[in-house]
């Protein structure tokens, strides 16, 4: 990760707020140090100079001093007012979006972020924005409180169910920055994050136009599955997984809550993604959200390919899909041949870069 | 100062020097307790304030269905019991045992009447499906085809079918709230929260209105419920007081338990003095005065 910060152990500075907040932070550190050092020095100095020399000796009495008391009430008060005013000024900037903004809609959901651009583009857990534009996020959530937090932009705001909150920023430096959920929202709170990509305007335009990727379908599917669409937050395995186990799913018979048994072929997987509530696997809750309208056909192909690559019963380790299943797929999907593209098991996760 | 084995008046606890100190302690303690009680109810009043300022019309609609007659009656009952309580203290100070006993019994009687009336009101809400918790209302079967023809249930009264005991805001109740809300809407009295809180796509939305009214009923039940709980505790206190007074424990020198219990009883009365207008009355003029 490239660092745009000029101080060690410091987060990147990538928005117009960043340096303001940082300078204010340094001001507070300065205030703190200039109070702390004298106090600590005084404590040490007095404690050593006036240490007990004779057991139980009684030093001279000192009476309080009104002058001192007034001084050390007024000075902190005045300084704290500068802190208040500076903070209020920054805050009003951060919380009042300017007039000319590019709006992006944000929906939080346990535990993923969904973004929608004005042009209709949708993203999950990733947000692409152009540099140098005022960007306003219109945010809400489907369930509990969440919080959009982008440290490099020094800004965050809670996302509250039942209403819209807003957040705006002007990203200055192209790069890739952390996006976190900073309001506790349950089980996978720490997994509810992703990346913000700041791009120069022209690259952003390309991206909006659907700049192609040169990943194989399985790579693409894996990327979508683990990062972009957040499938992994339910299907990643581990004891607490809420979604059905997908490893070794392809080609098996699946028992639905209706009692029906269906074969897990491409069609079935595709339907599971687009219309999850249509066929609920036995033993699971119908909580999987629909991804209809959020995945392009190309991405669907990738997802199906990836899930197939997760292994099928009659191909224990090697994940080349069994020809039988391939043949038995009367898929509406246009590119069934793309499936056994690569042995995904030794495919390293596409490093986020 | 006095040594330890001086004369101990009855009721003096060991940590105190004399009766005066004990009485002061107990009285300050009770007042501190009452402050605590005020803040306890204060949280609820804050909730009331927030939601009433958001959805005044829904609150008016909900309030109109409460029976101000019963509420007013209960206010009077409580005031009488407050008087008898005050008189109890008066006679305790005078050391008059018989009057004490009679007045405590009277206080308890009125307290019980209050609770009885509350029970009547609660059961009315239960029967009309106005308890805001799903499943805690009168469960009336979905109308049988036969009953449907008659349009009446067995009880002879028209009941909304409510098989799962859910909160109901239908029929006349709903019509009345529609009337209030539409009128306020036309005269532009609705708050901006109400504009989105009652309407979907420009149409009054029955479910949304119901939800807001349910919040009113929820506040009504929690507030009056907690108040009733305090009354019950008060009755327990009175029972104890009655026994002690019966035994002639209290005299002109030692009556602070009576006084302390009195403070509690009056406090509970004060809470009701506010609950009555806030829950039963505000918004009533919309019904009588025909809106703004």
């Amino acid at each position, binding site marked *: 990760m490239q660092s745009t910060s000029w101080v060690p152990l410091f987060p990147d500075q990538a928005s117009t707020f960043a340096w303001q907040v940082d300078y204010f932070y340094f001001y507070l550190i300065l205030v703190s140090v200039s109070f702390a050092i004298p106090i600590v020095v005084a404590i040490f100095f007095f404690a050593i100079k006036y240490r007990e020399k004779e057991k139980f000796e009684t030093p001279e009495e000192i009476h309080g001093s009104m002058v001192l008391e007034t001084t050390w009430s007024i000075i902190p008060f005045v300084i704290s007012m500068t802190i208040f005013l500076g903070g209020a000024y920054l805050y009003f900037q951060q919380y009042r979006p300017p007039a000319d903004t590019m709006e992006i809609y944000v929906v939080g959901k346990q535990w993923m972020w969904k973004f929608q651009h004005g042009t209709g583009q949708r993203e999950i857990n990733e947000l692409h924005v152009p540099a140098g534009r005022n960007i306003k996020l219109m945010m809400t959530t489907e369930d509990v409180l969440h919080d959009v937090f982008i440290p490099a932009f020094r800004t965050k705001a809670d996302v509250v169910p039942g209403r819209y909150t807003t957040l705006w920023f002007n990203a200055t430096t192209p790069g890739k920055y952390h996006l976190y959920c900073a309001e506790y929202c349950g089980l996978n709170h720490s997994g509810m994050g992703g990346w913000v990509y700041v791009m120069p305007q022209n690259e952003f335009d390309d991206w909006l136009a659907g700049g192609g990727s040169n990943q194989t379908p399985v790579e693409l599917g894996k990327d979508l599955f683990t990062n972009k669409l957040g499938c992994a937050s339910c299907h990643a395995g581990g004891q607490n997984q809420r979604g059905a186990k997908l490893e070794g799913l392809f080609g098996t018979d699946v028992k639905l809550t209706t009692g029906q048994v269906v074969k897990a072929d491409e069609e079935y997987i595709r339907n599971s993604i687009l219309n999850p509530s249509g066929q609920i696997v036995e033993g699971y809750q119908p909580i999987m959200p629909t991804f209809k309208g959020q995945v392009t056909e190309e991405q669907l192909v990738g997802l199906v390919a990836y899930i197939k690559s997760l292994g099928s019963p009659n191909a224990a380790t090697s994940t080349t899909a069994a020809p039988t299943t391939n043949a038995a797929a009367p898929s509406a999907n246009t590119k069934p041949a793309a499936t056994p593209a690569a042995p995904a098991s030794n495919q390293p996760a596409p490093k986020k870069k | 100062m006095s040594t330890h084995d001086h004369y101990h008046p009855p009721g003096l606890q060991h940590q105190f020097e004399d009766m005066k100190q004990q009485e002061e302690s107990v009285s300050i303690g009770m007042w501190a307790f009452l402050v605590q009680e005020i803040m306890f109810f204060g949280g609820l009043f804050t909730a009331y304030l927030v939601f009433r300022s958001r959805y005044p019309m829904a609150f008016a609609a909900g309030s109109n269905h409460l029976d101000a007659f019963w509420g007013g009656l209960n206010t009077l009952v409580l005031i009488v019991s407050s008087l008898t309580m005050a008189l109890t203290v008066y006679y305790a100070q005078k050391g008059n045992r018989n009057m004490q006993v009679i007045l405590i019994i009277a206080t308890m009687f009125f307290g019980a009447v209050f609770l009885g009336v509350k029970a009547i009101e609660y059961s009315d809400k239960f029967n009309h499906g106005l308890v805001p918790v799903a499943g805690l209302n009168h469960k009336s079967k979905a109308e049988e085809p036969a009953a449907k023809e008659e349009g009446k249930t067995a009880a002879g009264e028209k009941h909304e079918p409510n098989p799962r005991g859910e909160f109901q805001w239908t029929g006349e109740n709903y019509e009345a709230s529609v009337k209030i809300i539409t009128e306020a809407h036309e005269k532009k009295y609705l708050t901006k929260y109400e504009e989105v*809180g009652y309407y979907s796509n420009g149409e009054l939305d029955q479910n949304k209105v119901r939800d807001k009214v349910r919040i009113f009923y929820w506040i009504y039940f929690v507030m009056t419920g907690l108040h009733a709980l305090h009354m019950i505790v008060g009755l327990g206190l009175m029972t104890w007081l009655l026994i002690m007074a019966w035994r002639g424990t209290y005299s002109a020198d030692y009556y602070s338990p009576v006084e302390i219990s009195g403070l509690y009883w009056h406090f509970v009365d004060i809470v009701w003095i506010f609950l009555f207008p806030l829950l039963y009355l505000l918004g009533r003029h919309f019904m009588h005065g025909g809106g703004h």
Partner: protein
Amino acid sequence: MAEHHDIEHTEAHKEHIGLPGYFAVFGVLVVGTILTYFVATIDLDSILFPGANTLVALLIAFTKMTCVILFFMHVYWQSKMIWLSAVAGFFWMAIMFAYTMQDYLTRVTGTFNP
């Protein structure tokens, strides 16, 4: 011990307004209740100003409360300490109202409920 205690402990403790006084207070309370009921059925909001009904209802309730506190609860004759705690409770509740409402009344963005 008495010399520094906060409560003036004299016979004042036993003071009260006597039987007629108690009944007078009782009368005020009853009248207040009936009054508040009838006022509530009049549409003061359009006669006077919006919120008048609420204001009147609360004023009556406050009067009733004050009567109960002062006379039934004997605060009128009590020490400063007791006055203070009686007032403090309500004052603190008012703080809670005021500071909570300052948020609700000044929110610019965001209505709640979809």
